[in-house]
């Protein structure tokens, strides 16, 4: 089997005296949809933050193996913008859109690390810059069509309804041309119809060649999408496997539902 696009070995994260994450191992292979689930406070978002460069892990290693076969990249302590440049993008649990920018501009920001025009090009509107701008606009528009937001291009992000904002975050992350997409609770607050549309969207993204790691609480969505599930509780991995295996794992049931007093 080829190398996993994301390989996490023995990841631990300490905040002062608190060990928020303990020796976590995780793998995502090319073309997989992997889910990370667990009760609230289990350390899932902390994991995302460690992997994307917002925190520097106390122990362990995070490796990115680009699917095109180029050299593996060690992500420990790498700044968030470099992590994104290397091909891993994320969305946020509490939506972090650029509120006062339009929908299109939010996506265009995602193109920043794939383009290069700077001050001179901007001021003098050189041919190269104009071409790059046109390409950025076109690519961004196509991504918005993919998530179904093309009719709202000139709306300010803050004026969008909640479900649309979540989709915009995904579009923005896609614009950075990642081979691995990290989604932090993409279905939070969505109604069943929106969740079904999200299900289709994520499958389409996977079919286009992206790998996906998602944190999610909506079990129906997780079961429908995932090739593999990792379960964490109190910062530790307590189970991993296919959706069927995990859903019948007693440790997982105990973590979510608590122990039966009579058992």
């Amino acid at each position, binding site marked *: 089997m080829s190398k996993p696009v994301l390989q996490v070995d023995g990841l631990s994260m300490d*905040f002062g005296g608190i060990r928020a994450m303990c020796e976590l191992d995780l793998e995502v292979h090319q073309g997989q949809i992997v889910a990370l689930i667990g009760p609230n406070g289990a350390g899932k*978002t902390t994991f995302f933050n460690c992997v994307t460069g*917002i925190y520097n892990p106390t122990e362990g290693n995070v490796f990115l193996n680009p699917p095109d076969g180029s050299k593996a990249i060690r992500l420990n302590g790498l700044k968030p913008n470099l992590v994104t440049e290397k091909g891993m993008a994320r969305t*946020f649990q509490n939506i972090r859109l650029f509120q006062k920018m339009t929908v299109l501009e939010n996506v265009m920001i995602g193109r920043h690390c794939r383009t290069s025009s700077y001050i001179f090009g901007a001021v003098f509107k050189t041919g190269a810059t104009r071409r790059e701008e046109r390409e950025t606009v076109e690519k961004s528009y196509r991504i918005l069509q993919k998530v179904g937001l093309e009719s709202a291009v000139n709306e300010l992000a803050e004026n969008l309804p909640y479900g649309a904002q979540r989709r915009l975050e995904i579009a923005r992350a896609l614009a950075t041309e990642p081979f691995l997409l990290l989604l932090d609770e993409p279905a939070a607050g969505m109604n069943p119809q929106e969740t079904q549309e999200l299900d289709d969207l994520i499958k389409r993204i996977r079919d286009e060649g992206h790998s996906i790691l998602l944190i999610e609480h909506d079990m129906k969505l997780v079961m429908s999408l995932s090739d593999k599930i990792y379960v964490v509780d109190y910062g530790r991995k307590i189970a991993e496997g296919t959706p069927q295996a995990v859903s019948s794992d007693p440790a997982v049931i105990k973590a979510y539902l608590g122990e039966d007093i009579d058992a």
Partner: protein
Amino acid sequence: MEYFIELFFSGLTRGSIYALIALGYTMVYGIIGLINFAHGEIYMIGAFTAFVVATVLSIYGFPLLSIVLLAGLAAAVWSASYGYTIEKIAYRPLRSAPRLSALISAIGMSIFLQNYVLLAQSSDFQPFPELIPDFHFMEPVAHIVGSSDLVILLTTALAMAALTVLIKFSRMGKAMRATAQDRTMAMLVGIDVNKVISMTFIIGSSLAAIGGMLIASHIGQINFFIGFIAGIKAFTAAVLGGIGSIPGAVLGGFVLGLTESFATGYVSSDYEDVFAFSLLVLILIFKPAGLLGREETQKV
């Protein structure tokens, strides 16, 4: 050696005043996360109020002790009122706005108050009456430590003690600590957060006013601009000690006062203000938590 002791006490005096003003900065920052830019002006208004009251009373022939007490009371009462009003008008409406909005509003308030006093009183330096007479028992050491220095040190020590008792043992103190830790939770357990915040401003302003009156009497003159420099230095002291920490403000005040005194005494007096500003810049860049503060990790 004598020079050293002289500088030492001079530094303690400075440090006391910085500490008194710094307490206001640190308490307000601890409770609403705002750098109260206008706090220096509260200090200045305290000094001016004391000046006006003391001069009027002395013209009408009141005895010195009553002048000191009444001027001090007036300074504290009016400064507290200004502090309360400023919070209500310029900061409370912005409590849920982005932090920078409140900071800009504070800057505006500072400029407004400076010019208000300038227009209401005068742009010239005003001579401040000497409120603390030279005590007889101080005569043998008068060339090293003045009576004024002594009074300032004692008053500061008393104020610190009173504040510590208030914060640690009184109901209001407990409410203040709770609000500083978690405002929403404090509201949910029934604390009147608005009242607590107003109280914080009132206490901080009163302390600054007393400091203003004492140092004005010590130096002998005031003008509308003293708040700016004193404010920045006191803020430096608060940050040095760890912003949000009350003992930190006191520690920072004395450290700054002493270092300034020795630096200007032994090195050069021209660059006195540069020293304070540079210290401020260096602390904020390299150790923003200060001496007694805790490093804040950002929650994402």
